[in-house]
Structures are given as C-alpha cells and as structure tokens.
C-alpha cells in the first residue's frame, strides 16, 4: 500500500485542537504530562508508545472525558468558535462528543448498544441529531453497512451475532454515520486476529481518506501507526519523547527509546 495517497492536512485553516501543557497524572509518571501539540484539519495523528505510557489517558483528556490536572485543550468548533474544552460546561462537552466528534473504542462492546439491532446502532447518532424519518434512518443504516463491508441484509441482527471484526466495523459505521469532524480511536484494531486486522485497517484508511477525517489514533502497533498517520507522538512514561512526521520518526528515530521501539518491532 502506498502511503503517499493520504491527502495532505490543511494547514491554512485554524487548527482543530490546540493542546497546551496538558497533564493528568495518577501517580509519578503515571498518566500524561506536559503534552503540547496541534492537530490540523484533515490530519491523522498517531500516539504510540509501550503499554502504560499514558496514551489512553491523553486520549481521554483530548476527547473531553477526563479533566486534566493542568494545561488546557482548545477546540476549534464547526461554528468557528474556539472552545476551552474544560472551561465550557459538561453539557456542551457531551454535546460535542455527540454532534461533532466520534469515539471508537478498542472493545466494540464499549461503543455499541448490544441490546438493539445493527440498524438501531447506526441510527442512534442520527436520531440524537433529530432525524425522525424511519425510512431514511434505515437507508442510512444499509448504506453504512455496505461502506464498512457488512451485509446490509443483516441490518436487523443483534451485534452479539456478529464476529469481533464485524462488531468493530459496526462501531465504525455507527460513529462515522454523522460525519464527525474529529474522531478519536483507541487501538481500533487491537484484540483482533491479524488477518482481520489487515482488512479492517485498509477499510479505516479508505474511509479516512474518502471522508477527509481528522483523527487522533492511539496504538501500540507501529505498523498501524505507519499505515494511518501523518504524524506521530511517541510517549514514554507519561511524556512525549519524540514528535514528527511518521516517516521521519519510523525511518530515522532520534530518541533512544524510539530507536528501541522501532528496532524491536520492525526488524525482521
């Protein structure tokens, strides 16, 4: 697969996220600290690092789910406001997550409603936005099942009758159906068989490109990071130790930890 077909991020428009000195620590060096970066529209930013390095903690802070101990996150919203994520009300934050953002969990069960059909899962965010036409909800459900390579004929089946890989596709369809401006993914292909992972990654890559999504992607898998992200943050013990363009970092790592990470994964 050729990385060069990823569209370029838009550097002209204001940044989507501006992260200033963010820290959220559960203990010394446990969590994330002194994090600074900017996410541009149309950009896929990978956050990599070993287990426990603080990737998920940082993602939760960025997604408005966990208040930082220090620092702030500025989000440039669809209606051109710049919002200080933790200065606005919880109501506003939850509305952002519902209306402008998407969140894809590692375990699809955390992101799906297991008690209702695939179609209801895909329709929920549309209904939350005020869509009140059953026929249109159903059409959107079928369309999105097709887009994530699920059989639209199974629209009335419960998620539990789907395999893990299919559930992850369903979660992606459910999240992307409202065309979120910004998507947070935490290990979207973790926990799946390698063969299933490859196809899923390919599909995510295609959707990211087609929809021009802006994504913050957490993964401990450098191959996943290489395939999907424009830029990387490398985390170790709660800090970003190296940041830059994906190719640069993976082909010519500067920090000793990144060198170790790259060599341990990528050497045959």
């Amino acid at each position, binding site marked *: 697969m050729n990385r060069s077909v990823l569209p370029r991020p838009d550097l002209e428009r204001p940044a989507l996220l501006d992260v200033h000195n963010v820290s959220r620590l559960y203990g010394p060096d446990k969590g994330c600290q002194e994090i600074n970066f900017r996410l541009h529209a149309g950009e896929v930013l990978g956050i990599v690092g070993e287990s426990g390095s603080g990737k998920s903690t940082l993602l939760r802070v960025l997604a408005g789910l966990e208040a930082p101990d220090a620092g702030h996150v500025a989000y440039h919203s669809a209606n051109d406001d710049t919002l200080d994520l933790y200065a606005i009300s919880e109501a506003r934050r939850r509305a952002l997550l519902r209306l402008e953002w998407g969140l894809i969990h590692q375990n699809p069960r955390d992101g799906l409603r297991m008690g209702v059909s695939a*179609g209801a899962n895909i329709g929920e965010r549309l209904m939350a936005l005020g869509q009140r036409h*059953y026929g249109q909800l159903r059409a959107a459900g079928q369309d999105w099942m097709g887009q994530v390579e699920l059989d639209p004929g199974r629209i009335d089946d419960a998620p539990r009758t789907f395999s893990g890989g299919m559930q992850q596709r369903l979660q992606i369809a459910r999240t992307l159906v409202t065309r979120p401006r910004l998507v947070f993914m935490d290990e979207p292909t973790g926990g799946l068989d390698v063969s299933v992972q490859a196809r899923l990654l390919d599909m995510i890559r295609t959707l990211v490109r087609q929809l021009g999504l802006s994504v913050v992607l957490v993964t401990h898998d450098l191959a996943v990071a290489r395939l999907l992200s424009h830029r990387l943050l490398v985390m170790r013990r709660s800090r970003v130790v190296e940041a830059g363009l994906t190719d640069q970092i993976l082909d010519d790592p500067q920090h000793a930890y990144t060198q170790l990470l790259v060599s341990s994964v990528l050497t045959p």
Partner: protein
Amino acid sequence: MNGYNFAYLDEQTKRMIRRALLKAVAIPGYQVPFGGREMPMPYGWGTGGMQLTASILGSDDVLKVIDQGADDTTNAVSIRAFFQRVAGVETTTATTSASVIQTRHRIPEAALSHGQILVFQVPIPEPLRFIEPSEQETRLMHALEEYGVMHVKLYEDIARYGHIATTYAYPVKVDDRYVMDPSPIPKFDNPKLHMNEALMLFGAGREKRLYAIPPYTRVESLDFEDHPFEIQAWDECCALCGSETSYLDEVITDDAGNRMFVCSDTDYCMTRRGEVA
C-alpha cells in the same frame, strides 16, 4: 379522629410533598425527588399516588378512585375507603363531580375541567431506565436533553414488528423539554394529556419521585414522520352502551369462551346508559 392526622400523613410531610409538587408544576415533566413516607399498604398498591392525594386533599374535596377504568375493583374500593376514614372526605364514582381523581391505568373518558386534579400512581417514573440503569446518568441525560435513545427504542419496535408496538406507558415529551413516562396508561389516553384543563400529578412511591403536567401544557407522543403516533382502535363498539369512541376491554362472558367488548371506564359507560349510581 381515630388517632390519625387528617388524611393520615403528618402536616410536616404533607408540606414537604406540596413543596415538591410546586416545583414539579413549575418544571413540567421534571422528576422531583421527595422524602416519601411509608403508607399502610404495600408499594404495588399505589402508595406514591396516595401520598400525593393525602397531601393535596382538603375537607371540601370530593374524591374518586379508579383502577383500570373501574371504581369497584378491590384496589379502588380500599383506597377510597381509606381516605373516607382518615380524611372524612366525600367520595364519588362520577368523574364530573370529583375534585380529585386518583388513578392507576386510565384517564377518564369524560373531559376533565379546570380545577380538577388527576393523581396518577406510577410504578416506574424513569422513561430512560430501560436503557440506562444508573440514576445519576439518567438525571444527566435529562439535564442535557440526551433523548436519542428514546427513538432507538421506537426504531427497534418498527424494525421488529413493522409498527411501534409500545401500547402503554408510551413516552411523551412535555412542553417541548422533558421526556416523561405517562405511567401505565394505554397510549389511547396519551392525547388526553395534551392541553388538558385539569392538573395532572404523578407519584412513584418506591422510587420517591413525583412530577406534574400543569393545565394547558403541550404534551407530544414520540414518533417518526413516516410512522406517526396512533391510538388503539376497535372494530367493535361497547356491547353495553354502544360507544364507538371509548377504550374497550375484552371480557369473557361464559365458560364457552364467548366474549364481548365493553368500556373500561365504568362511570362513563353507566352514565351513557342512564344508570348513574
């Protein structure tokens, strides 16, 4: 009187409940917690409704109690007898003569008028409970108007049955703000909630929540544009009074399994037959 305070509850409890009721009236459809008291009956008997009735009852009031649509079921008779005994109030079966009507499953067929109060006994006050077990979370969902899941349930009905299969406790939106469970009334009665002249109060004893629909409040049943809300309809009319517009119960008339349809609202049916007690 019998060693009981008027209407059984002590005055301090009544004041506390009335304060909660004022809040409920001020925020139509919003569930107000209240420090409920034990009533001398088990929860399934409508203790939430009884505490509200006890708190609003005055000596001039005329009380009617119905269970389903009937005044003469065990439950209705015993609640009526209870308030007769502890409050000495006049009771009635006539909808039009009552100033307070306590009910479990129905809204009377006769139009209610300004000044009347309808008190509902509510088993499960939280319309979001089916999807979200946490009370803290459902309160937040109400506060943030996160009501998408209510339509998920209706969507699922249509996907499964081809139509919205919910027939009672059919969810409504009150004054374009709060989603509310109208208690286990049939959806047939939902349109009566809309712009009703009477004050409607809802009390849940076990969960200690009360809520209200003030007179002339907009109440809308949730639906889809292409699957609009519809009430139940029957091919038959009432076998006793011939009504074609009332809510009908099917009753089995003999051992041979013969059946007929009759009004669930006994007062309405008898009034039409000229047999008012």
